């Protein structure tokens, strides 16, 4: 199947939803299980004042779980993908800012920098993290823009309810 036909069929959107949804649920759950750890990591970015920091550390992991669940279920998929995209862009910008600051304060090459960005995957090579986030952004953009594909169970439910 050619790329345009794959996009038009909705299969690409379905696959993107499955991948992005699962990733968001996994990363959100990792942070929700250790909100104090996440709070400390978000603080290292030095971007938020104290009370906003608490709010972000408390709410963001659960938002990721909710967004992941909605993407997997295929409910409000376009809107969820758009919010996920904005969240990913904000996270990625914060990681770039911190990596640039670390790079300027030391002698290490940019792509040899590694730190725990609070992304839920522990300490990582920042260049790899940026590539990963770019991939997730593409998936979110694809779900937002490409034709939707309902999950199989939605079709069965629709068929069952037809007289």
């Amino acid at each position: 199947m050619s790329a345009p036909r794959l996009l038009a069929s909705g299969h690409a959107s379905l696959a993107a939803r499955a991948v992005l949804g699962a990733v968001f649920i996994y990363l959100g759950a990792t942070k929700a299980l250790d909100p104090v750890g996440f709070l400390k990591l978000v603080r290292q970015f030095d971007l938020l004042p104290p009370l906003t920091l608490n709010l972000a550390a408390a709410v963001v992991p659960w938002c990721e779980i909710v967004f992941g669940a909605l993407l997997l279920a295929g409910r409000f998929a376009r809107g969820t993908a758009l919010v996920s995209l904005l969240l990913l862009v904000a996270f990625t910008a914060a990681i770039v800012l911190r990596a640039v600051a670390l790079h300027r304060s030391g002698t290490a090459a940019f792509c040899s920098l590694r730190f725990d960005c609070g992304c839920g995957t522990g300490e990582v090579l920042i260049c790899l993290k940026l590539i990963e986030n770019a991939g997730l952004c593409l998936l979110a953009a694809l779900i937002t823009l490409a034709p939707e594909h309902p999950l199989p169970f939605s079709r069965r439910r629709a068929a069952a309810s037809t007289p």
Partner: protein
Amino acid sequence: MSQALLRPTLRQAFVVALAGVAIGLVANALSPRGLSLSRNYFPDTPAFRAAATAAPAATATATAAPAGTNPAATAPARSQRGLPLIGQERATELFRDPRRTEGLILFVDARAPEPYARGHIPGAYPLDHYRLELYVTDLIGVAHLAQEIVVYCHGGECEDSDLAASDLQQLGVPASKFSIYRGGFDEWQRLKLPVETGARGSGARANP
């Protein structure tokens, strides 16, 4: 994206974002691990501020010191918030001091409950800065009675021991009693010094 699709997508995005925040707030409030939204978890401590304001005076003293001496070299190293740092030798010395068994020297473990249960310096009181209310009633009386309080966390750059010491200072325990064991539990365990597992006073030892 067509105009016809743009508006419902934006509306969906707004509703989804609101739902995410609302669910997040409820889940955080219900979760036993939830964060307080109104507490500043990383305050500046009085000791930190005192150390910062005392710096010019220390500089003035340094200029008056006799030639050939370096007061900075003899001054004790300080934590980020101005508390004296001690090394493994001093920590072990205090651990073996008979005053520890009399409650006059206190060890305080500022790590989270899970690593504390896996192993801590025998007799150390737990004090998780982020769940202060669970520990402070057990600790505040003995902290007032103690002559010296050694606080530790994992070691290295962990800030939790500083924050736990700051919590006790805010409850009236004088800053002069505190020191921070710089190497922390990671170093203690690496050196195979005595370790107690489970609850404080459980008697279960991981190392002799």
